[in-house]
């Protein structure tokens, strides 16, 4: 029913501002919603509340100095951001790193992928009203990963672990034991999530056939990561454009069927299992050797341009770096996955209920830190 006007009474659309301070907009996202009753007629996202001008900062920092800033992009998956950035710089410098460092990077990146997906799972369930319990379970598991990272690099959220030419510190035998323990600990927990949320009938009713993103639309909007795979496109940079040692490891790419919120969620759950597999294999075949290649303290890439993208937990993180022969990047563009993923939201939420917008947004797992940059 459209807003109608009759002689005696008239109805009008109801404008509400969801955010920037709202419990389930995943940060400082502001959605301007036009409602007809509880049905959404129009949705306009406003972003930029967390804009820290990272790209301008990058032009005034050396290549090494910028690594801590990449931590703050997607602060849930800092390691993956570090990885994407240092690999882009290494590509710019034509630097080959040691084999052991590659394996270590894979292990760390996959651990952080699990941590990130755990938060996505927990917050998604929280958005659907499963108040706090799945969230606390997810944080309990994430804590184990964070403790491992704490032992490796000394910080719990913004790790600053990857270095241009390798990694900060080697994995000791003790840490490897801990990671193995974690794999054993984690496997039954993922099954627990399946029982607690994935196949819960209320959860299914809330998330099935909600926010259906078709294949064509997903590709056209340049949606990447688990959201793209949830729509049934078998595209994963780890398989399709392998970097590091992903081509030597065996894993599957889970894909969804319908492209609805539940599929996107399910892909994340399955990816956690696959990441555990990858870590297990990478630990098995971890070679000995150095973890860092000596690079000069002052890095001066030649005047050239490069674009490099990695598979982040939220999608494809790309760094477009332009060097001009000085110690600073001339221009550094961060192509953040959440930015493109969020752009599709207004299209998906038209005509659904106000309760579902939270569901769709939660299933996209956007993070304002990298949208606003």
């Amino acid at each position, binding site marked *: 029913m459209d807003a109608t006007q009759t002689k005696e009474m008239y109805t009008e659309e109801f404008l509400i501002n969801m955010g920037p301070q709202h419990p389930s907009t995943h940060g400082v996202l502001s959605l301007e919603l036009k409602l007809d009753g509880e049905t959404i007629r129009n949705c306009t996202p406003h972003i930029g509340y967390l804009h820290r001008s990272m790209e301008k900062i990058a032009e005034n920092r050396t290549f090494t100095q910028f690594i801590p800033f990449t931590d703050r992009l997607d602060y849930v998956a800092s390691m993956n951001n570090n990885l994407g950035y240092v690999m882009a710089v290494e590509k710019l410098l034509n630097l080959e790193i040691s084999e052991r460092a590659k394996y270590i990077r894979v292990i760390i990146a996959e651990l952080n992928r699990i941590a990130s997906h755990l938060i996505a799972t927990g917050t998604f369930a929280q958005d659907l009203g499963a108040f706090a*319990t799945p969230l606390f379970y997810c944080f309990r598991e994430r804590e184990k990963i964070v403790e491992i990272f704490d032992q490796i690099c000394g910080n719990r959220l913004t790790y600053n672990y990857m270095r241009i030419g390798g990694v900060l510190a080697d994995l000791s035998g003790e840490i490897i034991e801990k990671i193995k323990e974690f794999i054993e600990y984690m496997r039954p927990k993922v099954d627990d999530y399946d029982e607690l949320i994935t196949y819960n009938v209320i959860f299914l009713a809330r998330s099935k056939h909600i926010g259906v993103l078709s294949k064509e639309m997903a590709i056209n909007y340049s949606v990447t990561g688990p959201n793209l795979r949830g729509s049934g496109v078998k595209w994963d940079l780890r398989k399709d454009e392998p970097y590091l040692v992903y081509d030597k490891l065996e894993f599957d790419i889970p894909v969804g069927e319908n492209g609805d919120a539940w599929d996107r969620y399910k892909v994340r759950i399955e990816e956690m299992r696959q990441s555990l597999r990858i870590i297990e294999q990478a630990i098995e075949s971890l070679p000995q050797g150095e973890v860092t290649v000596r690079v000069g303290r002052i890095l001066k890439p030649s005047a050239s341009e490069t674009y490099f993208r990695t598979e982040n937990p939220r999608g494809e993180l790309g760094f477009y770096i332009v060097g001009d022969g000085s110690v600073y990047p001339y221009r550094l563009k961060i192509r953040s996955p959440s930015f493109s993923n969020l752009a599709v939201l207004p299209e998906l939420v038209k005509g659904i209920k106000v309760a579902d917008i939270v569901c769709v947004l939660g299933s996209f797992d956007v993070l304002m830190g990298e949208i606003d940059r």
Partner: protein
Amino acid sequence: MLSILTIIWALIVGIIVLGFIAASAMFLIWWERKVSAHIQSRYGPMRVGWHGVLQSVADAVKLLLKENIIPAEADKLVWWLAPFIAIVPPVMAFVVLPFGKNLIVKDLNVGVLYLMALSSVSVIGIFMAGWGSNNKYSLIGGMRSAAQIISYELPLIISMIIVAMQAGSLSMQKIVLAQAGCWNILHPNMAMAFIVYIIAATAEINRVPFDIPEAESELVAGFHTEYSGMKFAMFFIGEYTNLFIISAIAATLFFGGWQGPILPGVVWFLIKSYGIVFVLMWVRWTFPRLRVDQLMGFAWKILTPISFVNLAITGWLLLK
């Protein structure tokens, strides 16, 4: 002379009941926090008293001392009255709750009917809160609440009527006495009525999975977004008193009320009531929330037909 004694008696009873309500609500708030914490692998409140048992008292003191903020654009009268209207029905429901053989304020011969009437009143308080706040989120919460409570009234009442039919009386004490040999829950049709009752009652008091009027992740806090201090505390106490009331009614109607071996009646009554409260808390901290249209659909498409069929079957069984 008689009238003075009656007034004094009424005052004493009133004070006891109000004291029990406050103590029960505070205990339930603490208990809910503990249950949720342990389900979530946490400890919950641990500082105030043994395992934080006095936490609710500390919270109540804090809320009493808080500033009372009135939204500038609020409809002042409606906004002021709403918490009182929300808290009065659960308090009044204590009148007919049989705590023991003689431990009842007034055994009305229309006890069940009285409870049904009261449960419909609390929606007015919630809707007034949503309307009076002049906040869009609160308004949506209030409207959802009105629609929800009216939908779930029907299955709730029918399942209570089934019990009344079985006992042949609307008086709460008579219903308890009718279960002397065998608890109602042990009859299959009564068990069904219990399930319908407990689902509908959960919806009546807006708890997960039916908490759409509050819906933290969508509507921030729904109808009580704008309330602070003691007014918020009144909504809170009302909510937890309601939780106790519906559990107590369930215990009375389906689990034999205060009847039980060895222990005194009032202990049995409280054990049964708090047992049902625990189950409701356990459910709350496990399930996600339904959407508003699914909620309505569930009430009209599943619960109401089931309860009507159940009513017909019970009638047939009684006449047989």
